[in-house]
Every structure is written in structure tokens, then in C-alpha cells.
């Protein structure tokens, strides 16, 4: 049963930040990705690590014409699991290697400068 829960004021969750909300068995991480808010469960689909404690950053895509052969993209959108480095897109919950290995996402909304999590 989903419940709308107060998280924090929007000022406390600037772009690039994450708030861990104590909800359910594992908690949920609420992220501000470039001004847009997203939430994923704090539980890696691989072996259950606290996923939201992982570093948030970007990922690489092929760039055959550039000297390094790869380029950084989706900065601020990709969380890396602290245990085995699996990458997840916090805006979709999808694992970047294997999209079938996803984590659960939740809806986040803002009212009067306050952030709410529906989890």
C-alpha cells in the first residue's frame, strides 16, 4: 500500500544530492538529477547491497572517433553499487548492462517547496 511521505524541503535536496528515506525493509533513495526528482529502492538487484550508498555519477558510451574511444554521458544519473560496481540509472531503475536486472522506482512529487515520496 503506497503512502505519500514527507521527505524534506526542496532546498535540502539540491541537484546531485540524495536523501535516504527510512521506509520499508531497505529504505528508498530520493535523488535530484539536474532538477528532476527520482527515487529507487536501497537494495541492489544483484546481492542486496545498500545501492543508494553508492557513488552517483555518469557512465561511458562508445566514441570511436575520440582519442580515448569512450565519452562520459548521463552525468549525475547513474548510481554504482558499492559492492560490485553494477550501474543503475536512477531515472528508470534499469541496470545498464542488463536492463532486465532492474531495481524498483517510486514516484516523487513536490508541493509548496516540500518533497514527497510515494512508497
Amino acid at each position, binding site marked *: 500500500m503506497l503512502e505519500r511521505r514527507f521527505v524534506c524541503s526542496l532546498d535540502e535536496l539540491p541537484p546531485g544530492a540524495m536523501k535516504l528515506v527510512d521506509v520499508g525493509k531497505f529504505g528508498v533513495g530520493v535523488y535530484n538529477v539536474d532538477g528532476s526528482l527520482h527515487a529507487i529502492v536501497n537494495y541492489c538487484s544483484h546481492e542486496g547491497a545498500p545501492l543508494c550508498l553508492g557513488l552517483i555519477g555518469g*557512465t561511458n558510451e562508445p566514441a*570511436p572517433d575520440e582519442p580515448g574511444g*569512450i565519452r562520459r554521458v548521463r552525468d549525475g544519473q547513474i548510481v554504482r553499487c558499492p559492492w560490485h560496481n553494477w550501474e543503475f540509472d536512477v531515472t528508470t531503475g534499469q541496470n545498464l548492462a542488463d536492463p532486465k536486472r532492474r531495481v524498483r522506482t517510486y514516484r516523487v512529487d513536490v508541493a509548496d517547496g516540500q518533497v514527497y515520496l510515494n512508497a
Partner: protein
Amino acid sequence: MIIDANVQPHFRYNAEIRKYLPAAHRLRSIPDVEQQWYQAPGGNYREDLYGEHYPGSDRDTVARHLFDDGGVDYAVLNPLTRGNIADYLLNSRICAAVNDWLLDRWLEPDTTNRFRGTIRVNPEDPKGAVAEIERLAAHPKLVQVGVPMQSREPYGKPMFEPIWEAAAAHRLPVAVHINGGNGVDYPPTFAGHAHTYPGYAAFMPLNYFVHLATLIIEGVFGRHPDLKFVFADGGYDILTPLMWRLDTFWLSMRDQTPWVDRYPSDYLPAHVRFCSSAFDGPTDPGQMQRWMEFSGKADLLMYGSGYPHWSASSPADAADGLDSSQRDNVLWRNASELYGLVAQVEGTTV
């Protein structure tokens, strides 16, 4: 139908190769095909084949053993060259001489139309290797490109890519096989030199995995959808655990090689085949069927006798313990699809 995807024809005698070398290289020093540090204790070849000339050097005898006695319909000939010798230009001429000899002594006089051949090239001379593929690719009886297992760099590295590109453009699979002769090679195992032949023979074939892993991870298969590699010394018994490792590492470090856009093991069906080996597989044939299903090996494996090697195996040996569908795959179907060979001899059932 039975297809033998791995047969090594030999020169009648060591110096026969000189007849096929151009004048500028004819008198150069060339390693003997038998000059290897590791030889089987009882001789490298089947005991009954020793005679005046090298075992496996008489076309009629080979045809009798394979086709009449063994029931084989087609045999893919993959001759050895003479090791990775330091003079890469000479080595390329040796490859060309082996190819001309194979055409002259084996493929063109063969009226049975059952022999197929390999275009041997020298990967240490990428330009020469591409030129050799272009010279011979149109020949209807040359069905693959051949390179040594021994290499100073894994075959996924970029300097080799033009060779694989040329092979793929002509829809020719690339067969990797342990070469004869002694060259400027690295040790035969990951941890150095073996003491005696059993250590060598058990571990040398496993080097294929380094070639395979780099072909996947460097993106070579991804860039060349038509490229196929045949690992002709077996070693497929270690395929599954090593692919598990590769898949696992890829899940964690995918972003370092983002051009690998699927599980490494997902490249196997379209790009990789193996020839059977007498040393591969479970020691208990009762486990064979289940073991063949791991990593989809039943679709990857082709019977290869290794004739005239001492450990040459018969079709019955290779099919021991398999179910009937696996048996058909291994004895002919996989090779038939790879090489485009169909039953053509009267009285032969498919």
C-alpha cells in the same frame, strides 16, 4: 553425413616446401615442421603412419583412412606452417608456399571433391596476411583462413583487425590452431614452460580463451557481424566457467568497454566454433549430454579428427555419450552450416 573439420596434411619431406617458395626466399633457413620442444613420447603421429615420408602426406592414403575407413564425407585440411619465425616477411612467404602446395598437391588434383582447404596467413604481417586472403579467397575449395594459436599478442588487439575484416568480408571463418615448428613464441602455459609433453598438451590449447576474450572485449565481434572464429584444438571444456567469469566482470565494469552491448557469452552463437579434441569433455560419458548444453556447446562444436596426430579421434569417439541431435550437430550440421558443405556423394544420407 560426417564432416571432419580438422585435418593436418603434411609435406612429404621437409624441403618440399622450397619448391613453392619464390627465388628470393628459396634458400633461406626454415624451421622443420617437427622442430618443437614438446613432442608426444611415442611420436607425434599415429604409429601406423610412419614411413618413408611424413605421416599425412600422401593424398590417397589420407583419403582412404578418412573417407573409406572413417566414413567421413568432407575433410577440411588445415596445414601447419613453421612457427612464428622472427622474419615476418619470410614467414608470409612460407604461408603462401604452404597455400600453393595445398592447392597443387591436394585440392586441385582431388577428383573426389571431398577435401577443402585453409588459407594460411601470418598475423605478424597484417598487410601480407590481408594480401594473401585477397589472393586466394575466391578459390571455391578454400573455406577458411588459418592462423597459429601461438601469438605474441591476443588476437583481439587492433593491429590484427584488418586481417579479420578481410576474412569476414569474404565470409571465411578464421581457424586458430596450434602451429608446428618452433618460433619466437611465449611460454605455452599462462605460468611459463611445461616440463614435459603432458603439461604442454593439456594446457597449450587453453590459450584460445585469451584470444576469444579479447575478440569480445575489444569489440571485434561487435564491429564485424560476419566474423567467425574456429578454435581447432578443443579447449571447449573450460568455456563455460571462463565465460561465467567474463560475464560477471562485464556486469561490473561494462563502462570501460561500452561497445560490448550484450553479455560476452551472447557473442558465442554467431561468432565462435570449436573442433572436437580427444582430451576434452567429462571423463564419464554419462555426464556428456548435460555438459554439452552448458554455454550452448552443442551448437558450437564440430568433429575434428586431428589426423594424423597420435591422438586422432574417430567420429564414434567424438559422438560418444551424445544424444542424437547433439551427435548430428557435432558430426556434420554445425560444420555444414559454417562451411556451406552439403551431402553430394551418392548413397550418403544427411
